[in-house]
């Protein structure tokens, strides 16, 4: 496996080049706004994939760190002058780093459990952080929320946020790509396939999982940070929102978890539809029903996601063409 292939470079450069050019070509506010949300979810789904997609541990708590990131920026700039232009965004890497590191002990506790229990415990994390946001009034102002001072941009209000989200998404994709090709990635995939066996082969499973977790959480917190600026005010219900979590997971499943491009593709398919539904049915709860419906359809019809299903289709074609009996593209799992 080579590090960089010309095809991969072209693909990555092309997609991100087009995405970067988009807000300069299309200036309608509400369209760029949808773009911001799409990139946000693409980033969240990609960050989620970095841990859950590669290790097989389904985390339902990532959105807790999204909220913590939002609060971290909000609270920081409550006390420190926010500056103008792009300056507030420069604090994001620090927030990502700090939240990522702080989350490691939390993950260490959660990772004492496996499979379903892990999923539940991480889901509890979401509720814990939300409750803390309500209760720690001296820091978060409880249900009144934190007001984030508005950074000043000359024009095109949405564009800076769009570009910031795009940068974090690019970073997330880059990290995912790198991890997948590194020894860490091999360890993670081993853990996903059979963790006990990996332990028996000397793979330091806990350390590997914690590194992937910290990376994933750090990226999630950075996205939360941008989102905090974007909305100006941060409330417990909206910062730590189970819907954001389930949305990101759904997108990763739709695109194909464990694949590089899958979560991003999932987000690009679903978010525009979601935003459209929200503006059409926002006032009523029909939006939730539609969401639930799409969710069920995705899980029942495409449980493996778009990218793996397409890859299967392609390899089956090739298989028929070359007719090699020794390498079969069957999907089978050893249950043990």
């Amino acid at each position: 496996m080579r590090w960089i292939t010309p095809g991969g470079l072209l693909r990555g450069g092309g997609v991100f080049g087009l995405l970067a050019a988009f807000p300069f070509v299309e200036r309608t506010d509400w369209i760029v706004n949808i773009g911001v949300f799409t990139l946000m979810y693409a980033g969240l789904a990609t960050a989620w994939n970095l841990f859950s997609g590669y290790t097989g541990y389904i985390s339902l708590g990532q959105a807790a760190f999204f909220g913590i990131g939002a609060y971290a920026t909000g609270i920081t700039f409550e006390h420190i002058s926010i500056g103008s232009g792009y300056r507030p965004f420069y604090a994001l890497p620090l927030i990502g780093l700090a939240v990522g590191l702080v989350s490691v002990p939390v993950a260490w506790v959660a990772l004492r459990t496996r499979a379903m229990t892990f999923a539940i415990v991480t889901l509890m994390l979401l509720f814990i952080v939300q409750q803390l946001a309500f209760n720690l009034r001296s820091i978060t102002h409880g249900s009144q929320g934190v007001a984030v001072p508005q950074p000043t941009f000359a024009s095109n209000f949405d564009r800076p946020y769009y570009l910031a989200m795009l940068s974090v998404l690019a970073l997330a994709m880059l990290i995912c790509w790198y991890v997948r090709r590194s020894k860490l990635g091999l360890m993670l995939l081993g853990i996903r396939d059979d963790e006990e066996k990996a332990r028996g082969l000397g793979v330091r499973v806990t350390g590997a999982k914690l590194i992937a977790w910290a990376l994933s959480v750090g990226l999630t917190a950075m996205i939360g940070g941008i989102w905090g600026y974007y909305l100006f005010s941060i409330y417990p219900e909206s910062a730590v929102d189970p819907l954001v979590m389930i949305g990101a997971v759904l997108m990763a499943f739709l695109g194909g978890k464990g694949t590089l491009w899958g979560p991003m593709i999932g987000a690009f398919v679903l978010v525009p539809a979601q935003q459209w539904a929200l503006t059409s049915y926002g006032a009523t709860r029909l939006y939730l029903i539609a969401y639930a419906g799409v969710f069920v359809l995705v899980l029942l019809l495409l449980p493996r996601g778009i990218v793996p299903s397409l890859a299967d289709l392609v390899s089956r074609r090739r298989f028929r063409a070359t007719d090699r009996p020794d390498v079969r593209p069957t999907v089978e799992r050893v249950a043990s």
Partner: protein
Amino acid sequence: MHLVVQACILGVLTGGVYALMASGLTLVFGVMRVINVAQGALVILSAYLSWALFTHFQVDPFLSVLIVAPLIFALGVGVQLVFIRSLRSEQAEELSLLITWALALGIEGVLGAVYETTYRATNTSYANSAWTIFGYQVSVVRAYAFGLCVAVLVLLYLLLARTRFGRSVRATVQNPSSALLLGVNADRVRALAFGIGVSTAAAAGAVYGVLYPFNPGSHYDLISRLLSIVVLGGLGSVAGAVAAALMMGVVEAVVAVEISPVWSSFSYFVVLVAILLLRPQGFFGARERTL
């Protein structure tokens, strides 16, 4: 001291209601490795049904259990047959978690569309009366609710311990593949178990509305408690869930009077983290290890 004992009484009475909801959740997990995230939403749905029966037809909420529970049972069997059974993928467990979450969203959406987001409560004539026993106040509705939940739990116990169906369920919990070999009709056991599991939510939900005000979004608060309880008790262990529910009910009530009501529901999470550090498999659970 008086306050603490009073809180303990309240805790046990509340814990009994949660015990019923949680026992269904953990039973479903034991039989089919599915965590039904919609359990909380089904409680709220039942609370609405019972509220509607009470306001429009003056059916007492404790009687409406007899109508609501069979309805939710049928719904549960339907959900199992249509959605969960068809998850044939290698990660059916994780997918079921998400699909039941989607179900919860759907229920929340439907309830929101019909009833808006205003809080409702089922106000019976006896809602505010209380007995005084040895100087301690015992709310009548809470005592009735506790009694109802204990009665349903006893029924559930008898069903599992004494009937042929119960034997099939226990066999499936202990060893699904052997149970299959011994002629247990796995599909039927699963569908019935799912139906029974959600009807415990229905029974508890019918009286939930008498105890607490609720709105369509209340299910998140409920499911977070229920999930803590089943993890505490050990996934799949009904006895563990009952013990954990009673314990958490008492802890929550005592924290509310001794520390602050604001932090009372947070006590769930503190106990949960403590248990995970000491005994990751919960009180009665077996380690989730594949060896």
